[in-house]
């Protein structure tokens, strides 16, 4: 039984989402709340499965699964190692908590009869990402990328303002362009190698790195993924998308979608582009580090000037994606682990922050920073959580924000990319400034008469508890960081091999 379970766990992790998404609208015809439980059970199941996968691959060798029983490169292969099972767990965990959170917030933000379809699309959104994470076939990645993107477009459009549609449309156009670039890149790679399996691709690419075809393929794949990741000059879609979507979707997206694109880039960088080797005299990791540094600083600087809390958080997300990139691009065990940890940490922090913002919205239908004055008195618990999360974002020790920054800086110092250190410190300062502004409004200003549009007297427990769990974990993993650190260090070791000290 256990054997059966271990063998099939990789595919079950993904297939539950397909079944959940198919059944949610059908069950929803019987009773609306059935579709909610469908979503809840699906995400819970996949979370359990992916944690099981994580422990299984942490203790044993990576798992392989040949779909349809066809050996790669003829068939599609699933390959689970520590890196992707770690992110699988993060994504499914965030999505599970978001569903719990949604119990209260979706009811107030989305028309009741749309709930079955909403949950179905939500499951497809998460399932698509899980599919990207687990597969070892580059075209399969594209297919699942499109599933998650399509679902994402519809979810963003469900926001309460009419501008949500425009935000969604912009995302659709840019996202499709990004995906098509990715497709072009796949085509060029296929042209040069004749295969789509990542492992096989990596082998067959050896010795071809200096051809134009491969260079252009890499350029297009990287640009396409950076569009999806919202790296600085290509970030247009993200702020609107996060700002105008429903609270629960902002929360879930902030924790998952850009990170999955980042994972894709990391995976491709390390397995097929051979970032370690550096080819044709192009310093690949240097380029990405420069781009990531610009992204970090630009995101933080633009965030300072925002007047809307959700938009500020969105720009902050743009900056934080830079951390993940910068850490993983340095080809250093510690920096890589730091970048990986930041995927977990930022997912927890930003999801929780968007959840708190959603709480403010739930009560006052506004997320303008100026409308949040004096909220420290009216919503003390939410404000306190916001304070803790802000500290974590700044990177104060004993919170998770510190752990990942510490490892990135450590790695930077070791690998000699000293330029990264001031970038990270400066951005921590900028983060302190823009979060300080909000905290100041929350606690030191008296509330103004303008925010009288109180929708609900009390915030439901589902919203509070899911946020509190994340806030608690932000502290818990900041203090007892041992487990995630061990996992990500081992993942880093597996990916780049043990690097000698200095």
């Amino acid at each position, binding site marked *: 039984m256990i054997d059966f379970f271990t063998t099939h766990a990789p595919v079950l992790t993904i297939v539950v989402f397909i079944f959940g998404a198919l059944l949610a609208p059908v069950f929803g015809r019987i009773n609306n709340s059935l579709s909610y439980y469908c979503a809840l059970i699906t995400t819970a199941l996949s979370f359990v499965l992916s944690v099981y996968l994580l422990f299984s691959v942490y203790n044993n060798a990576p798992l392989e699964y040949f779909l349809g029983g066809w050996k790669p490169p003829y068939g599609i292969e699933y390959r689970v190692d520590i890196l992707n099972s770690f992110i699988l767990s993060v994504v499914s965990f965030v999505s599970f908590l978001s569903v719990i959170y949604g119990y209260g917030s979706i009811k107030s933000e989305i028309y009741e009869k749309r709930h079955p379809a909403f949950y179905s699309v939500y499951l497809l959104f998460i399932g698509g990402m899980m599919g990207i994470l687990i597969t070892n076939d580059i075209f399969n990645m594209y297919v699942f990328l499109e599933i998650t993107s399509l679902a994402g477009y519809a979810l963003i459009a469900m926001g309460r303002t009419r501008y949500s549609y425009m935000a969604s449309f912009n995302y659709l156009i840019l996202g499709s362009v990004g995906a098509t670039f990715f497709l072009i890149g796949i085509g060029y790679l296929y042209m040069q190698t004749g295969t789509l399996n990542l492992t096989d691709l990596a082998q067959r690419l050896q010795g071809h790195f200096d051809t134009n075809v491969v260079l252009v393929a890499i350029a297009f794949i990287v640009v396409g993924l950076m569009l999806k990741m919202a790296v600085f000059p290509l970030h247009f879609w993200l702020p609107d998308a996060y700002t105008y979507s429903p609270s629960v979707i902002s929360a879930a997206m902030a924790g998952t979608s850009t990170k999955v694109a980042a994972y894709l880039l990391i995976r491709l960088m390390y397995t097929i582009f051979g970032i370690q080797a550096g080819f044709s005299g192009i310093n690949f990791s240097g380029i990405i580090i420069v781009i990531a540094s610009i992204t970090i600083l630009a995101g933080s600087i633009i965030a300072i000037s925002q007047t809307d809390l959700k938009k500020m958080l969105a720009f902050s997300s743009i900056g934080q994606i830079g951390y993940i990139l910068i850490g993983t691009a340095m080809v250093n065990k510690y920096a890589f682990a730091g970048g990986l940890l930041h995927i977990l940490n930022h997912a927890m922090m930003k999801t929780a922050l968007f959840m708190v913002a959603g709480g403010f919205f739930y009560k006052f239908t506004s997320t303008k920073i100026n409308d949040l004055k004096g909220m420290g008195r009216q919503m003390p618990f939410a404000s306190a959580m916001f304070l803790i999360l802000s500290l974590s974002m700044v990177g*104060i*020790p*004993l919170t998770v924000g510190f752990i990942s920054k510490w*490892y990135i800086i450590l790695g930077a110092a070791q690998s000699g990319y000293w330029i990264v*250190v001031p970038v990270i410190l400066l951005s921590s300062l900028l983060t302190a400034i823009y979060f*300080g502004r909000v905290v100041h409004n929350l*606690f030191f200003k008296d509330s103004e008469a303008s925010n009288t549009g109180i929708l609900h007297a009390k915030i439901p427990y589902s919203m509070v508890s899911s946020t509190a769990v994340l806030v608690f974990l932000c502290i818990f993993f900041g203090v007892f960081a041992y487990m995630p650190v061990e996992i990500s260090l081992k993942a880093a070791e597996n990916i780049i091999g043990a690097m000698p000290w200095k």
Partner: protein
Amino acid sequence: MEMIQSLTPVYAVLVSLIAIIPIYLSRNNPNLREFWTILAAIVKFIIVLSLIPPLINGHTVGINLFEILPGISFGFRVDSLGLIFALMASFLWILTSFYSIGYMRSLKEHNQTRYFVCFAGSLSATIGAAFAANLFTMYIFYEALTLFTYPLIAHEETDEAFRGARIYLIYLLGTSIAFLLPAIIGTYLAAGSLEFVNGGLLAATASKGLSSTFLVVLFALFILGIAKAAIMPLHSWLPNAMVAPTPVSALLHAVAVVKMGVFVVLRVVLYVFGIDLMSALGIGTFLAYFASFTILLASIIALRQDNIKARLAYSTISQLSYIVVGVSLLSLSGVKGSILHIVVHAFSKITLFFWAGAMAVGAHKKYVSQLSGIAKKMPVSMAIFTVGALSLIGLPPFSGFLSKWYLLKGSLEAGLVPIAFVFMISSFLNACYFLPIIYIAYFGKISPEDEKDSHIKEAPKMMLVPMCITATMVILIFFFPGIVTSLIDLALNGIF
């Protein structure tokens, strides 16, 4: 020196942190709320006192709570240096609590609950830093103190208060993130650990062929990062933070914040770099000259201040550098003098600030020029001021004399005669800015309006009694220096 595993230091830190909850919950009942504050202060002091016996017996007390990352743990370790700091802070918290109650109530301040909550939090952070076992733990409490004192400085919620608080935050958070954190990372990279070691954490690594440039840069980062020590040019947050209520200023400028700054400098010099490494690199002498510049300049600026609290603030900046210079002399007497000066200055300066608060509450005076003839109406307060001022000038029979004596001796031991001159000139300058106040208060002519104004009277007992106690302490330490110096000797045992 064996280490006794004990949770006592943890309790000492937690007492005031836990006290926040009852303080917050009893926000509608001021008497109960103040009771909790006082209770927490007393319990804390007792816990700290209970740490003395094992230390006298030559042990250290500590515990490693958890290891966050390899080589980085969160833990406490009580040695005599930390204990001196903790004793001083927790004792003065009791007095400041009483004083605050009197001050806040007679001025009918708003948001008193937030005030007391943040006060308790600040004390936890202070004790935490005093007992920290490593740079990492210390850094956490260093930042925590900054964050806890921010609401205290912004307490008035005027534009000026917000401005002062913002400058405070930018200076302290900014420097600690931009300089202190990289310095800690550098230390970790060089030594692979952050624990405080008696001979100096980095001393062992010097032989491993670390370039001296790296170490000098590291030290410079540390000094730049510790803006709480208010060494010029990173001092201007201190005068700006004067917008805070007076008890807060007393806490900031005498006990918690600035003392934590110099305390961290001491820790870095003695336990991270170590005397030998410092003198080998020659950075001690450099720091001594650098900081003595602050001593003189700040004293001269203080001469020109009319605002009482601003004058005291610049005086503080100058006195803090005494401590920094003292330790950077790297001689036995110098270090001893500088530790002693932490205590002496704490008692003297808190006396002066208490006096300034008494002036604000009793006479509504904020400027030196308004004080002429005030001694007639407020004789007790002025007597107390005289004690504090003379102590800071360094005259016997006040404790200030002791520490200055040691500092002078230390500078001669180290063979740095110019520093000795700096101390002397500065003492003269101290006299120049304190004696005029005494002169006009006693011999100046009281203005007719003040003469008639019946509102001008001594401050409430709640404020006056703590002042008297601190002033008495200033004198007591002169006559019974053994209480402090025995602990100091204990601290320096392992170092020299």
